[in-house]
């Protein structure tokens, strides 16, 4: 927490981000190259799903990051509304499009995985529908934060949406347990431990780590841009 408080100052955050970005970018590219090798070449086909299991290495990490990104938006929303955290609004503006892109990758790759496995690109099943709702919540957040002439009002309205929409996260997670769905139940984050063989689990976790690096990289980069954009707006207004 003291570290986060230290970064609450936009100028300090900018200095931290400028130092962190080059190393983070290099680590992301290297991790992505290794991850793609593991996902497309090294990992074996699944005994039931065959080669299509390789879509999982994109689909599942995207879903995790889309959900984690929304949890971040909610936390930033709370920080903005409760503590008027100076950086929270700017970081939420930066993070929402990143989370939306991960949600879109999850939906589209899931659809491309569903066609050979289920015989259809889409069903109105609880998991798919709640994930689609998450994507719309992201779009709503992006639209709302830019809908007002006064950016502070837009940020506050978007923060409220982020806090209300967070109820969708447990619905996405437990939808496969609460309802009878075509989507498979949890096979990694479950009580009895992962139900996936290590030869497939390790590339999956590697790709999840890579996507996390990419997420952090993009959020830092875009937050820096938002800070500078706000400085330009203030300079124009003065």
């Amino acid at each position, binding site marked *: 927490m003291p570290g986060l408080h230290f970064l609450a100052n936009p100028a300090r955050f900018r200095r931290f981000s400028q130092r962190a970005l080059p190393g983070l970018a290099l680590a992301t590219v290297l991790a992505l190259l290794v991850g793609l090798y593991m996902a497309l070449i090294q990992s074996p086909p699944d005994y039931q799903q065959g080669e299509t299991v390789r879509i999982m290495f994109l689909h599942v990490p*995207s879903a995790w990051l889309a959900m984690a990104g929304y949890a971040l938006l909610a936390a930033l929303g709370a920080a903005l509304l409760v503590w008027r955290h100076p950086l929270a609004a700017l970081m939420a503006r930066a993070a929402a499009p990143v989370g939306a892109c991960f949600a879109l*990758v999850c939906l589209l790759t899931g659809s491309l995985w569903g*066609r050979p496995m289920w015989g259809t690109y889409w069903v109105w099943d609880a998991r798919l529908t709640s994930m689609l709702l998450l994507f719309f919540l992201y779009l709503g957040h992006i639209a709302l934060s830019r809908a007002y002439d006064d950016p502070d009002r837009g940020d506050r309205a978007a923060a409220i949406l982020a806090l209300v929409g967070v109820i969708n996260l447990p619905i996405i997670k437990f939808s496969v347990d609460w309802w009878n769905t075509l989507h498979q139940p949890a096979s990694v984050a479950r009580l009895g431990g992962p139900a996936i063989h290590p030869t497939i689990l390790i590339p999956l976790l590697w790709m999840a780590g890579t996507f996390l690096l990419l997420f952090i990289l993009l959020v830092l980069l875009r937050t820096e841009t938002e800070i500078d954009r706000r400085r*330009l707006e203030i300079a124009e207004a003065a």
Partner: protein
Amino acid sequence: MSDHAVFILAAYLVGLVILGGLTIASLSARLKVRRELEARGLDRPREQRARAT
């Protein structure tokens, strides 16, 4: 790969286009804002700007 290769390649292409596009858009927005800051002389810390004036 199998006869499902088209779905696998399409999924990776979708990932590349969306996440690659987002990265390029983020970088170009960063460069554009930085250029505007430089043009207005706002790219240096406040103390340095005060000393320069």
